[in-house]
């Protein structure tokens, strides 16, 4: 993140200049306020959620629900944790945090291709050509933004990769993507502030002229996004992206890789009051040679970053208000294929949740001996989403209106996972 106060100016002065240029959408001047509102005061008792998204479909049978001794079990051994569950031996650091996390071992879904699985797990809906459903981030951001008017940062930040779009909720709730170093493309404005201010005033003239010609709502929408961008550019809250300001110990604890940095940034964004952050860790699509890939690259990264995040949020007293969801689009086949890989498998797999008031330490539900089926009741994407929304204080009676006027229940009417509350 390279946001800089322009040469020879204090930040306050710069913001004042920009403020003169703002108010495109006719709202009160927004720019000064970020100076007074500190990050800590923003966060007070406000809920956030962090989605750790494992793109490609993680092999949960090798991580959270091991089947040692069965023909599907693979070579990894389970170890004890601080919770009631056992997990993979290559997750020793997360094992120490499992009293705060619960494994939902009876996930059973139907979507086993990446596109459909990603859509379904993010939205609670199966893809439908007539409807674009909003993803987790947009849903939660739109429900939680009402109590954080001081927030200049986008309400939904996706670190290190794209997320699911805002669907019918509109581009205002679209994910704002940054890389794991917190770089925001094209943020630097190499222009003296007074010149920028004058340009903004001139732009306002053109912008409102066109709006006043009454050519439709989208002309006004454009002005609103301009305003938001100006707020963002001049906001002190942008420092939340600057993970390099953390101590070397903290940086090392999270891990010197994109996922570790993303987890650290997620914590900083939670502190700044951002309602929803998604951190991406891809590379789980192991159709061949899965075990060395897990043992040597994926699991060490996951173990370090995820455990650091839980530990750090706990230490800062933030975990109670911050839900963590760990999942991918599906699990992987219990059967090990001819290339020592595992293929896509949605019928029986695991999701991990914790924080935000969700009960930790549990192993919820179970799969059969070789992991090929859920035994007893199962849970779906909708159920996980409903439980997370509830933990955020969002009413499950909330309903949206899609652009064709159809009412859409939040989390697609999923059931609460009782064990978690």
């Amino acid at each position: 993140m390279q946001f800089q106060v322009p040469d020879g100016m204090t930040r306050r002065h710069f913001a004042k200049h920009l403020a003169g240029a703002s108010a495109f959408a006719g709202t009160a001047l927004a720019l000064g306020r970020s100076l007074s509102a500190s990050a800590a005061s923003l966060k007070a008792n406000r809920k956030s959620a962090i989605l750790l998204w494992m793109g490609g479909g993680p092999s949960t049978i090798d991580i959270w629900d091991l089947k040692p001794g069965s023909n599907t079990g693979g070579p990894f051994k389970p170890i004890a944790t601080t919770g009631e569950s056992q997990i993979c031996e290559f997750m020793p650091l997360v094992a120490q945090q499992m009293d705060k996390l619960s494994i939902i071992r009876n996930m059973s879904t139907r979507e086993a291709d990446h596109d459909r699985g990603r859509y379904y797990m993010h939205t609670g809906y199966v893809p439908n050509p007539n409807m674009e459903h909003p993803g987790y981030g947009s849903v939660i951001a739109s429900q939680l933004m009402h109590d954080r008017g001081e927030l200049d940062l986008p309400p939904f930040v996706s670190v290190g990769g794209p997320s699911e779009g805002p669907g019918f909720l509109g581009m205002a709730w679209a994910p704002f993507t940054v890389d794991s170093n917190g770089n925001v493309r094209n943020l630097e404005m190499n222009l003296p502030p007074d010149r920028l201010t004058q340009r903004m005033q001139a732009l306002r003239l053109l912008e409102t002229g066109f709006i006043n010609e009454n050519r439709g709502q989208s002309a006004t929408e454009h002005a609103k996004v301009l305003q938001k961008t100006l707020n963002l550019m001049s906001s002190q809250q942008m420092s939340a992206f600057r993970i390099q300001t953390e101590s070397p110990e903290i940086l090392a604890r999270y891990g010197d890789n994109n996922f570790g940095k993303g987890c650290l940034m997620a914590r900083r964004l939670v502190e700044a009051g951002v309602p929803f952050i998604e951190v991406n860790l891809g590379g789980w699509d192991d159709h061949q040679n899965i075990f060395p890939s897990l043992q040597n690259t994926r699991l060490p990264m996951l173990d370090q970053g995820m455990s650091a995040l839980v530990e750090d949020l706990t230490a800062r007293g933030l975990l109670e208000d911050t839900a963590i969801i760990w999942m991918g689009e599906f699990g992987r086949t219990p059967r090990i294929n001819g290339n020592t890989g595992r293929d896509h498998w949605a019928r029986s797999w695991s999701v991990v949740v914790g924080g935000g008031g969700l009960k930790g330490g549990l192993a919820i539900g179970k799969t059969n001996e070789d992991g090929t089926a859920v035994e007893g009741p199962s849970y779906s994407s909708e159920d996980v989403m409903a439980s997370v929304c509830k933990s955020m204080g969002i009413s499950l009676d909330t309903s949206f209106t899609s652009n064709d006027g159809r009412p859409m229940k939040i989390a697609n009417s999923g059931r609460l996972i009782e064990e978690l509350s």
Partner: protein
Amino acid sequence: MIHSIPLFLVAAVFMVLSASTVKAQTEMESAGSTILEVRTIDKLVRDMWTAYDVQPSAVATDAEWCRRLYLDLIGRIPSVKELESFTDDKSKNKRGELVDRLLNDDQYTEEYSRNWTTVWTNLLIGRTGGNGNNSMISRAGMQKFLRDSFARNKPYDRMVYELVTASGHPDPDDEKFNGAVNYLIDKVNDENAAQATAATSRIFLGLQVQCTQCHNHPFNEWKQQTYWEMNAFFRQARATGGRRAEMTGASNELADQDFRGEGNNIEQADLYYELRNGLIKVAYPVFVDGTVIDPHGSVERTNRRQKLAELMLESKYLEMSMVNRTWAHFLGYGFTKPVDDLGPHNQPSHPELLGYLAEEFRKSEFDMRTLIRWIVLSEAYGLSSKIGNGNESDSPESGKPPLFSRFYLRQMDAEELYESLLVASRANAGVGNYDEQERQKNQWLQQFAQAFGTDEGDEMTSFNGTIPQVLMMFNGEMIREATGPQSGNLVNQLANNASMDAKEKINYLFLAGLARRPSRDELAMTQQLYSARQNVEHSLQDVWWVILNSNEFIFNH
């Protein structure tokens, strides 16, 4: 009784003519009404205005119409010279003449083909197709095929046939190059050609069968059986190559091989699928209209993709989906939403017009330029985007069926923005040959198209209406080049032009970006900027930056 129907229609037309739209009608006459098809389009659109009791917006100004035509037809806004030669033209039929020039004049062939190549490349292989390491697609190869097709105005049915049946090598450098294979080469191997089945049905027929891969559709007529019967047409197709081939120096290839069937009986080459209740069913190639073909799996005996293409060419969905798509391209909304769902559950807004245009398109022997000409010369395409007193209710943005009583405001595509910035700013215009230019554009576009990095080539675009887009227009490299001190850019040339006075220079910038002259307030604003800068070039930079960042610039209006 027999007479009552025509009487009703006469009355309807009379009502329309007698309303406040008489002015619009007379002005339009000079443009398109000599063409029967255009007259019929206008009548069918007007019938809906009458039925919904809306009055159309006024006719767009010549300059507005010219800007939108350039954008929609050749993918960029007009230069000042092009704009002025049109607005200064006193000829009665100048709109028709401009359309003909952009469609048929050699001067515009390259841009026309480039624009439609862009549209169709994104449609066929997405914005990220061929950009990943894992892909067998050659994006350049796909574009070469399309460019050639559009430059020669290949009949649409021919183009579809070639895309669906193609075999050969995807890369233009290859001896057995056939660019058309790029459409299917990444879609036939995974999950038994699920993507080939879904894309071909959706793109060329407007039929959404993909949901029925796993289950009968709840609100759509297509059954799971329909999906698998369509899928059976792709079971001979095989893509070979990929990473492994790269290492051995072999090249990628799409070809057809004998399909022995999942039951291993080539004479009845079948496939099996699972119903939700666990029952297993069998499927053979059957077209969506129920036409059965020889189930033999031998390519020599029955080339399934060729059979499929032949059946597609006879299907009325072929012309309906193309007409709907083309209409949506120019008018902002198709007759159905989404534009590629023509299934019986999804009623079109203008069934009669859709049917009529489809029929005429087939009669024209699938001449894409003719179809485009009818649409852009229609009254609806020529209306202002300003909402009038009589058509506030025509609001497809809020989910209502479009009535096309005004031109719907919409943002330029990323590609249109790129080409427009090049033309308007003369920033690094004409650097490198065609391939190099396309490479540069593709690189620039990648910031907005993010692949998900899975084996299905999924993507989402983060372009429209987002903070990253505004930041790009504020500070991005292209804007910095256009509004910075680079010698040779438009601002620099204007600043150094001794034969133009200050006002003419400002006028020029407004025409270049917005196809209009500045208002009095805007002129005063530019004067203020000049007073602050005390430097002509710097103040022109400011004005140009402001114009490029305005909603009016980025919207097609």
